[in-house]
């Protein structure tokens, strides 16, 4: 199974480090970079896209500046084939719909859907 090159958009260092370790432990995920704000995320992602080096983007909705929705928007604009999923604390119906309409493939709740995220990553790797 090939590694899924994953970019993380998450502003909490604690969550970030734990998530990186967990994902790399539980699935064939290789985290290639991270950003803490929407602007930084868009900037880095554009560079990565040019190099064709990203398969999956995991986006948190609540960021230090800007929101995960902005990141989704700029990913959609860039027309990248990379998959994007949302990992958030507030996975309400409205937020889910909003994210899905902005091009996200799935929305996961940070506390409840960790296993589902891992399963998703594994299924991506299988493709």
């Amino acid at each position: 199974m090939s590694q899924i090159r994953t970019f993380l958009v998450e502003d909490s260092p604690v969550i970030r480090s734990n998530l990186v370790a967990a994902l790399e432990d539980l699935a064939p995920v290789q985290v290639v970079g991270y950003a803490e704000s929407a602007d930084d995320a868009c900037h880095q992602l554009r560079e990565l896209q040019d190099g064709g080096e990203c398969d999956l983007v995991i986006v948190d909705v609540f960021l230090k500046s800007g929101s995960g929705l902005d990141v989704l928007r700029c990913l959609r604009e860039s027309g990248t084939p990379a998959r994007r999923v949302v990992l958030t604390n507030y996975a309400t119906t409205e937020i889910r719909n909003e994210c899905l309409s902005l091009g996200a493939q799935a929305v996961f709740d940070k506390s409840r859907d960790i296993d589902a995220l891992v399963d998703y990553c594994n299924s991506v790797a299988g493709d």
Partner: protein
Amino acid sequence: MNDARSSRWSSWVSSRYVGPLAVALSVMVLVVTESSFRQMQNISTDREASVETQLAVGGLRRALLFMESAKRGYMLTGRKDYLEPYVQQEAAFQTLLQRAERVAARDPDQGARVLRIIELAKTKHSEMQEVLARFDRGDRDGAIDLTLTDLGREAMSEISLLADDVIREEIAFYDHSSFARDRVVVGARIGIWLLVLLCVGGALSLMRLARSQEREREEYLRQLHAERDRLDEEVTQRTAETVELARHMERVREDERARLARELHDELGGLLTAAKLDVARIRKRIQDDTGTKQQLMAHLSESLDAGIKLKRRIIEDLRPSSLSNLGLRATLQIQCAEFAERSELPVDAQIEDVVLPPERALAIYRLVQEALTNVAKYADATRVRVSLRRVAQDVEVVVEDNGRGFDTTLRSSSGGHGLQGMHFRIRSCGGDVNIRSAPGAGTTIRAVLPV
């Protein structure tokens, strides 16, 4: 100081004595005029009496003189026409005597003299009658003899002396009494002038007193108004200070809540999520084991979930970061959903997407929070409706339940300060809160804010 003392004196005088004083002055005026009048009358009467005395005495003497002269003329000429005056005078003689007697009776000073004159006049008269009688009989010598006795002549000269005395004295009295009359007139004039001046003085000082009392009253009123204005100002100032303090306290509270929420979210949230990730990793490693390890992991996972749920609820109650991140609509929906779950009540949420400045969004969030808390605590309801919608230039929030309701006129039963806090926040955003409720009829809380 002088002013105060004199004003106190005059107010003392006027308050108790002005009435009796006015009456006394009027009575004095009467007394003065009455006594002057009486005195003038007496003087007048005395003067008339004096004149009467003079006339009586003088009249008597003149009559006797005429009679004597007529008698002598007759005796010289022997002609009856020379006796005419004697007859005429004799006719009036009795009247003159009576007149003189009246004068003697009433005049104590001259009475003795006048009586003497009367006596002498009678003597003289009878002497003249006798002389004439003798002459008419033809006894000329007898007549001359009687004349030469000087009875008549001496009587006449004494009469003259006495009459002169009386008249002189009466004239002196008459002159003297005119001085007395002048004195009375002057006295009366002075007396009345004095009393009038006193009255005028009293009236003037009363007027001055009234003016100064009026001034005092105006001054008192002015001070009263100034005091009232000052108190008004102070009340306004204090009220403004209190309102400002309340706002400040509210701000401090919100800041505190925001800080707590942030810490919970950032720190605690991260730790719990990390724990959950570790659980996932451990589970993968023990997935081939059976029994206790799986059970324990499952239990640990549940505890973590419960912890995360609790953390979320506390953060929501404190300060929903979703307000700034997701907007009012999403936040209210989350709030309603979590309330429905906690209280096991169906919540019908109809939330429009209205854009509001953060302070007002927070005020609405707190309003709904307080209202839902009250529903859970007191209402005993089976249905709750929460709606947010835009109406012209305002936004309307409604929280309605079909519960027990309460009497809105009783302050304590409406949750007291919680609702008052609501009122204050909404009002300080320029809006208004209206609470409709009645025992047994549910409760509707409606707030309207400008957008």
